[in-house]
């Protein structure tokens, strides 16, 4: 086993220059421009969709009674779930001393940040009067009212805003030493000034590094329970209610596993083209991809267990509405989506048991896309199929996303991709200083002549 995490022959200089060059080279690659143009056009679609929403209200979406949560909440949960892999890679794998996280944590964290930005848009847009979004926060006001702290929706506000803040802090703290490198390497005045300001005078002093390492571990320790809490609270939005198909104790663990599953799928979807295009195979090796595929397989099995338990508990509960909910999923009007979900999330990832397929880029890329689609379908099933037929047959109905639902969804993909393209061009997508520690020379040789040991 044991393929390396960094190809042999790299030095401090080569690592620094190779990753730094992607940002510092003067000429913007043509394919970057093409990619950014497409993403930016999609982002414009988001502005059109949101502009129309502000002008005409949420009636332009497909939601109505009984399905009052549609694409907005599906996409909110989908995006925020994707974000979770970034935190998992940067925090949990750091605490577990998994060195292979080093070359993927930076862009995974950026992915988290951008995914949370996309996710945050949906509940705000769904408010109906989004310009009053600040009412969600507790502040002394002339109405003499406070948010209801017993409501999972208020917990969600706190969880998601804390998550966005902490993810940003973690990402930015990780960037500081690399910003200092860019400040010292940049040949343009603007580059030196901007990176210089952002690096805040970082000089790599031993005392600073000492505190920096402490701070980084503390942030990792704080992010780890945070990431678990965020998706748990997202699942409470459903589980605390009484709707059949939502009111289940399996929701928190099953949502967290699903989030990591979707997130790793997205990291693979991004990593495979990036490492190929920017020639980063030395840093993001097959061993990284193999490890990520294994995590995806493991979390995929947890998700499959979740589907199984939902079905089992519905039968075991002896509650006719619960049993109807499952029958309706299997054979009701949305049954094609349910079976597509089972195919995408349960059947397809089983291919990852085969080492040959885990090491085959085309297969891995295809499976990760299939999983992303599957996780979107999962939220569609949970939200729409549970709501459209609940206790009272007289209030049953059907739901379909309208063109504006799709425009908003495609628009947030544009926002995500635009931010990602800008990130790749202006900030190092792999942590340079952490990659330096992977170079063999980075180890202090205790046996060297006049070595430390003689003095201790």
């Amino acid at each position, binding site marked *: 086993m044991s393929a390396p995490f960094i190809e042999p022959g790299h030095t*401090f*200089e080569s690592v*620094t220059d190779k990753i730094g060059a992607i940002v510092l080279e003067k000429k913007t690659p043509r394919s970057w421009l093409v990619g950014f143009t497409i993403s930016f056009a999609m982002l414009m679609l988001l502005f059109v969709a949101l502009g129309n929403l502000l002008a005409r209200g949420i009636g332009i979406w497909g939601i109505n009674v009984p399905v009052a949560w549609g694409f907005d909440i599906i996409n909110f949960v989908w995006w925020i779930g994707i974000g979770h892999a970034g935190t998992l890679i940067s925090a949990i794998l750091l605490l577990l001393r998994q060195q292979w996280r080093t070359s993927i944590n930076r862009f995974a964290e950026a992915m988290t940040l951008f995914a949370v930005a996309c996710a945050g848009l949906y509940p705000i847009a769904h408010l109906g009067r989004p310009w009053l979004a600040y009412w969600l926060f*507790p502040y002394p006001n002339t109405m*003499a009212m*406070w*948010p*209801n*702290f*017993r409501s999972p929706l*208020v*917990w969600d506000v*706190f969880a998601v805003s*804390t998550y966005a*803040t902490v993810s940003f*802090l*973690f990402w*930015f*703290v990780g960037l500081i*030493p690399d910003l*200092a*490198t860019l*400040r*010292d*390497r940049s040949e343009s005045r603007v580059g030196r000034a901007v990176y210089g300001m952002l690096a*805040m*005078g*970082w*000089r*790599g*002093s*031993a*005392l*600073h*590094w*000492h*505190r*920096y*390492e*402490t*701070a980084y571990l*503390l*942030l990792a320790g*704080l*992010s780890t*329970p*945070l990431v678990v*809490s965020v998706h748990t*609270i997202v699942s*409470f939005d459903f589980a605390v209610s009484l709707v059949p198909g939502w009111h289940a104790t399996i929701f928190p663990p099953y949502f967290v596993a699903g989030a990591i599953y979707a997130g790793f799928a997205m990291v693979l979807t991004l990593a495979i083209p990036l490492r190929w295009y920017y020639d980063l195979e030395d840093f993001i090796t097959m061993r990284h991809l193999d490890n990520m595929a294994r995590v995806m397989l493991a979390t995929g099995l947890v998700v499959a267990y979740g589907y199984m338990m939902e079905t089992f508990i519905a039968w075991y509960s002896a509650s006719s509405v619960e049993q109807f909910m499952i029958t309706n999923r299997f054979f009701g009007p949305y049954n094609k989506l349910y079976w597509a979900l089972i195919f995408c999330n349960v059947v397809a990832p089983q291919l990852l048991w085969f080492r040959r397929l885990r090491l085959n880029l085309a297969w891995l890329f295809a499976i990760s896309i299939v999983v992303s689609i599957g996780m979107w379908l999962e939220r569609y099933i949970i939200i729409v199929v549970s709501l459209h037929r609940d206790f009272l047959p007289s209030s049953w109905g059907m739901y379909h996303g309208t063109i504006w639902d799709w425009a908003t969804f495609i628009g947030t993909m544009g926002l995500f991709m635009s931010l990602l393209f800008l990130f790749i061009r202006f900030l190092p997508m792999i942590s340079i*200083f*952490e990659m330096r*520690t992977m170079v063999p020379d*980075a180890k202090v*040789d205790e046996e*060297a002549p*006049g*070595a430390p040991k*003689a*003095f201790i």
Partner: protein
Amino acid sequence: MKRAPLHGIMAEFDNPTALVVAIHKARAAGYRVMDAYSPFPIEEVSEALHIHDRLLPILVFFGGLAGCVGGMALATWTSVIDYPINVGGRPLFSWPSFLPITFECTVLLAALTTVLGLLALNGLPMPYHPVFNVPQFALATREKFFLCIEATDPQFDLVETRRFLENIEALSVAEVAD
């Protein structure tokens, strides 16, 4: 002509081992006020410099504590005292439902304390620092390792210290203008 005041004398090294060896030699020679600069964190360097800084975790603990108490207090005060709502006679102080808020506030304040504490203790942002006057120092964020014996060290002597650093196989030795 009056000489410009000096921050210290700086030696440049090629790899972390040479830096650690140099620090040990400098301490053995009696120097105490010095700082090392490296492109990545090196545990042995902090050990060699006898850095024992434990303030940050303590600050973070109190930051987290403030968030924890504050979060619970916010939810309790608003839901029990300032805006009580009687829902079928259920208890007003329903503390389990305040835990998510308490938890999120704890993490938020602890994380903010970590980052602001890190910057404050390190004195960042710092627009000017003398070490940047040395041209080679630009490589401290790429591949080179530096040791600077500062002029405030009681044993500092322009000629002697310079000679000492030249004798421990540094790649280059430079005076750091203040």
